[in-house]
């Protein structure tokens, strides 16, 4: 009976993992297909689509996307820590309501946010913020809830006696934050920032309205290309950016331990 | 006639290259209170987990009521288990917690209710049926945990440091109670702990573990009175443990040299230690007596002179450190009635019975 259950459980796990990976595998396969039709299991293999990526029409948007994602993850990391500090650590007055407000952008469809931001900037005459600065701000709105949530979870679990211990040893507020709080919430913060990075890097619905002429992000370039042709270069772009993000995550993991907070030790 | 309830035959457990339990064999008699005692990391919890069936031995055999348990999952072993942190189900009432085991056996509702009230009665928690665990104190939670474990009437109850989360007073009260419950039910208790006092207070037998092996097994008094290794001597109670060597002396006694030969004591000859193998000598503090009080001793004793170095008052007793001839320091435990006579710097005459000088091989 138990052996059967274990077997069933393993089979279910394998099936779920197959469900997760199948579409990715299919696209990876398509990116090596020599014909322009996107097919599964191409009969021949080619790297031509990857070679085509080394071109400013893909590289420039890629660099902009990277720049954007870095700025957005850093900024929302900073803002997220501040917000989480007030809500989860200092437990300011009305912290539950404030937490709900900080998370509220999550429940607005992105296109509505995009149009709203453009409308707002235009209506107060800040046309020059459209483009990369506006894009940064809009992406921060998008990513902030994730960072706040993860940083707040880490801070809720923070043992306040540690703070008292540091205080009795003479540490000032800033020293306590710098040497006690931040190191202990680091993995929560970093996973929030990693999410921010990924979300910003892959975003389409908000960016469509905010990219500036001549400065386009990678996903927007992909979508535009899609209007004209549906060829494996798209698959190649996606596979390449997936690899890039994986690399970025490994880097984050090295710095901050992205998955650390999801590993064991629930005490 | 005592029957064997649980038997371990050459059981080992390895995690990677790490040998946590190394070839231990045990036989636990039915209806006894048996403690597995050892410092953290000695393999006692792993042993418990193997008996419970949460971990499979890497080699060897575990038998419960004579049956090999290989491949038998925990739920089919019909034993009870009490955890250190109680592990009460937070979403169930006391009654639901205690009745869980009976419910799992598919017993009818009346029988479950019956079993629950019987179990709660034996831990003196009648009237708490509808409370939730978090509404109870630590001691009450502990009793619920015990009640839950005994409700399905297992023949064996495993207890994994069940008292260590309680404060001292409560812990001492619970010791007595646990022992009473065990005797009332006639159940086999296997009690894992690192607290030697606890083990001494309750057990019929103690199994001392160290580094994955059984260091000594026996009745509490035997283990205390004649520890077989310096580890056991040190771990159980207080003792003076000194590097020593021995050679045959007069009257079938042994001559024991301490502190590089500067002090010599006489020890009664035991049968189990060859003089050449002696490495340590162990003297319990209460065996280091003041000579005047020892006058009445009807057995041969070593006589020494020493200087009191330090005195610590423990209430009923005092603990004193004496520097004796030959430059050796011995700890002594003396009844407080003689307190007024002792202070640092006093010269005192001491007596240590030959039989109290124990010789150890390791």
């Amino acid at each position, binding site marked *: 009976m138990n052996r059967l259950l274990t077997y069933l459980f393993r089979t279910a796990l394998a099936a779920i993992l197959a469900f997760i990976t199948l579409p990715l595998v299919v696209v990876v396969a398509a990116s090596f297909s020599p014909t*322009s*039709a*996107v097919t599964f299991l191409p009969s021949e293999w080619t790297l031509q689509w990857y070679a085509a990526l080394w071109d400013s029409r893909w590289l420039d948007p890629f660099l902009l996307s990277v720049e954007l994602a870095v700025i957005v993850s850093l900024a929302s990391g900073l803002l997220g820590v501040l917000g989480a500090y007030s809500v989860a650590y200092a437990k300011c007055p009305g912290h539950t309501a404030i937490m709900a407000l900080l998370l509220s952008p999550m429940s607005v469809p992105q296109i509505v946010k995009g*149009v709203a931001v*453009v*409308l707002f*900037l*235009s*209506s*107060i005459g*800040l*046309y*020059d*913020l*459209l*483009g990369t*600065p506006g894009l940064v701000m809009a992406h921060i709105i998008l990513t902030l809830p994730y960072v706040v949530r993860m940083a707040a979870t880490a801070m809720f679990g923070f043992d306040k006696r540690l703070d008292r211990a540091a205080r009795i040893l003479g540490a000032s507020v800033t020293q306590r934050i710098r040497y006690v709080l931040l190191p202990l919430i680091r993995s929560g913060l970093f996973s929030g920032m990693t999410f921010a990075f990924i979300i910003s890097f892959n975003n389409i619905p908000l960016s*469509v*309205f905010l*990219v*500036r*002429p*001549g400065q*386009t992000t990678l996903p*927007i370039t992909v979508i*535009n*290309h*899609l*209007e*004209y*042709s*549906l060829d494996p270069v798209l698959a190649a772009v996606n596979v390449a950016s997936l690899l890039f993000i994986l690399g970025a995550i490994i880097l984050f993991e090295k710095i901050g331990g992205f998955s650390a907070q999801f590993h064991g030790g629930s005490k | 006639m005592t029957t064997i309830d649980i038997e371990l035959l050459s059981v080992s457990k390895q995690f990677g290259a790490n040998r946590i339990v190394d070839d231990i064999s045990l036989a636990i008699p039915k209806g006894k209170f048996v403690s597995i005692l050892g410092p953290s990391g000695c393999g006692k919890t792993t042993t418990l987990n193997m008996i419970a069936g949460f971990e499979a031995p890497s080699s060897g055999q575990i038998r419960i009521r004579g049956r090999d348990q290989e491949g038998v999952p925990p739920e089919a072993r019909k034993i009870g288990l009490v955890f250190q942190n109680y592990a009460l189900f937070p979403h169930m009432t006391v009654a639901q917690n205690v009745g869980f085991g009976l419910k799992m056996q598919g017993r009818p509702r009346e029988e479950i209710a019956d079993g629950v009230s019987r179990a709660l009665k034996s831990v003196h928690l009648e009237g708490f049926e509808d409370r939730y665990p978090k509404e109870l104190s630590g001691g009450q939670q502990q009793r619920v945990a015990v009640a839950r474990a005994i409700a399905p009437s297992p023949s064996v109850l495993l207890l994994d440091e069940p008292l260590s989360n309680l404060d001292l007073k409560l812990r001492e009260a619970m010791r007595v109670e646990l022992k009473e419950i065990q005797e009332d039910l006639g159940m086999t208790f296997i009690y894992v702990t690192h607290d030697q006092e606890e083990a001494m207070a309750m057990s019929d037998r103690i199994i001392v573990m160290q580094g994955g092996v059984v260091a000594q097994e026996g009745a509490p008094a035997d283990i205390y009175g004649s520890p077989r290794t310096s580890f056991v001597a040190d771990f159980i109670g207080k003792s003076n443990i000194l590097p020593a060597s021995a050679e045959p002396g007069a009257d079938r006694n042994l001559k024991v040299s301490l502190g590089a030969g500067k002090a010599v004591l006489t020890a009664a000859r035991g049968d189990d230690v060859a003089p050449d193998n002696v490495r340590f000598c162990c003297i319990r503090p209460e065996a280091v007596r003041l000579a005047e009080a020892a006058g009445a001793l009807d057995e041969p004793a070593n006589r020494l002179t020493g200087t009191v170095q330090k005195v610590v008052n423990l209430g009923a007793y005092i603990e004193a450190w004496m520097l004796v001839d030959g430059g050796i320091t011995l700890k002594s435990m003396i009844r407080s009635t003689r307190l007024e006579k002792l202070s640092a710097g006093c010269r005192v005459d001491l007596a240590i019975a030959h039989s109290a000088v124990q010789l150890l091989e390791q």
Partner: protein
Amino acid sequence: MRYTALCAPAIVSMVLAANGHAETLIVNSYGGPYETIIRERIIEPFEARFGIKVIYDAVGSASQDYAKIKATNGRPGFDVVVMTASQSLEGCKEGLLEEFSPEEVPNLEHLSSVIAGVAGPCGAVHEVQYLSLLYRTDKLAERPNSWNALLDDGLKGKIILPTFQNVMAAYLMEIFSVAHGGDLLENIDPGFAAMAKLAGQSIGFEQSSSVMETYLKGGDVWAMPFWNGRAQLLVDSGLPVDYVLPKEGSIPLVATLNVPKHAANRDAALKFVNFFLEKSSQEAWVTGYKVGSGRIDIEVPADIRAKQITTEADLKALLLPDLAAVATRLSAWGERWERDVVAAAK
């Protein structure tokens, strides 16, 4: 002054823009093959003649571009944008687009008045395509010459339709309406009736032209409505396809150059519009991108003339709906499309 801090980066970037470059112009248009041809045939000659640096922006479809102009109240960040006559009219009405004057864009005079009228005063027609019937030459026995060919039993499950959010859909409906005794605007019941039948033939609806293309390329679809400019690109790519302008006529896709009301580089933008409308530019564009022109005085090879709209007669043969009136009906038609056409496909 509350916005000083926020404005600072903007001011810096404006200063940099003013000092760092010579005159620049931002042109928003399409990507893909379009981009290659417009760069070579129009933008590079323009840069050479006027010494103005053109930044090419391929982001967004015409409707996304228009939404952006609307949201920014005429300051979308680009100076010239390629849209269609419908958006030219709408933008003019809303005051979001620059009205062209003959003084600033003299070449407007040379456009056929028929077609210039369609786009209104804010749109400079630089290209005319028409809705053609694109088909696989290897699958269809004979060349179709009527839109009704799409309703043939032989094409059941072998055609594909655009979704209503692709403007081809509304135009196709109007064409069928006219072909079946209705008109372009009021009496469109015959059009929807025909579309419902067509939906029964169709394997489905696709929003994106490129996805529609893949069905044709893969041979799952043998015929479909398609803008003839892109149809020609497919023909040139060597696929066994061809396209016709069926006898019932067709509705044109009148592509326009527009300048948003508050374009940063207005003068250069107007120069660019005028340049694109010059005879030589129009000839270069028509022969390069294989489309029709609103200028009827251009000289192009006979094979192109045969397939493209290049003459007054060609223009007069087209069905020209009142786009402003169509715009007000679009929403109602969209709902009717859901009820009559999409439902019929299931």
